[in-house]
């Protein structure tokens, strides 16, 4: 599930290198934590949340075999300021 979400999101954002997706499997749910460059968060969500909704629908279809719930969370990556310049 992580692979397909990562593949799709990389094609809609401007900084694919900043995209990090963590897949966390708990008892009866699978959670995807998406972090991306702040400038890309809006693109991932999409107008009226349409893209993230479509991504959720697809992730749930991929994950349908188990009874697991699918959760997707979006986080901003911390600004890596020039601390080592």
């Amino acid at each position, binding site marked *: *599930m992580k*692979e*397909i979400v990562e*593949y*799709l999101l990389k*094609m*809609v954002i401007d900084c694919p290198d900043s995209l990090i997706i963590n897949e966390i499997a708990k008892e009866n749910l699978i959670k995807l934590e998406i972090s991306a460059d702040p400038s890309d968060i809006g693109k991932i969500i*999409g107008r*009226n949340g*349409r*893209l993230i*909704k*479509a*991504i959720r*629908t*697809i992730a749930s*279809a*991929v994950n*349908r075999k188990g009874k697991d719930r699918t959760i997707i969370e979006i986080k901003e990556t911390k600004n890596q300021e020039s601390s080592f310049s």
Partner: protein
Amino acid sequence: MLHFENDGIRYSEQDQKAWQIVSRIVESISAGAEVKIVTADQGHTLFEIVKTDPGIIIGKHGHTLDAIQYIVNLIMNRRRGSENYKNYIVDIDGYRKRREESLKRYAREQAELAKRKGYNISLYYMNSMERRLVHMALQEDSDIITFSEGREPYRRIIIKPSSIKNEEDRL
């Protein structure tokens, strides 16, 4: 795993890329599923998903099929202006055609009802493609007019009999 079968026809690089996206999605939902290009021209490309259970790909109320189609259109048209916009349609087992027919039938039934009762009829919530189909199916009927109201995803079509002139006459 994903090889491009072109049946001797040369498709554009764009169509091949779109095909790849659809293939990757359906393959991850249902291993073994394949995607065919049915037609491809300047403005439209139609993909047909085969070798899998249609129910899984269609999803509840067609949501999964619509999500696949939405994403491929978004990715492919991301850097294109409206004049270069290309429409990708993703179908399985004739679902789009069947859905279109049943939507039109429903729209005509409700239009008849609106005329007979003489008041506005609200249809159920639809996405923009479905609303467009309904508007088109009813545009030749001069006894009624159609318009949409509400905000996505709770936007729906209202069928209003032409005999009603003012808002006050509305029931």
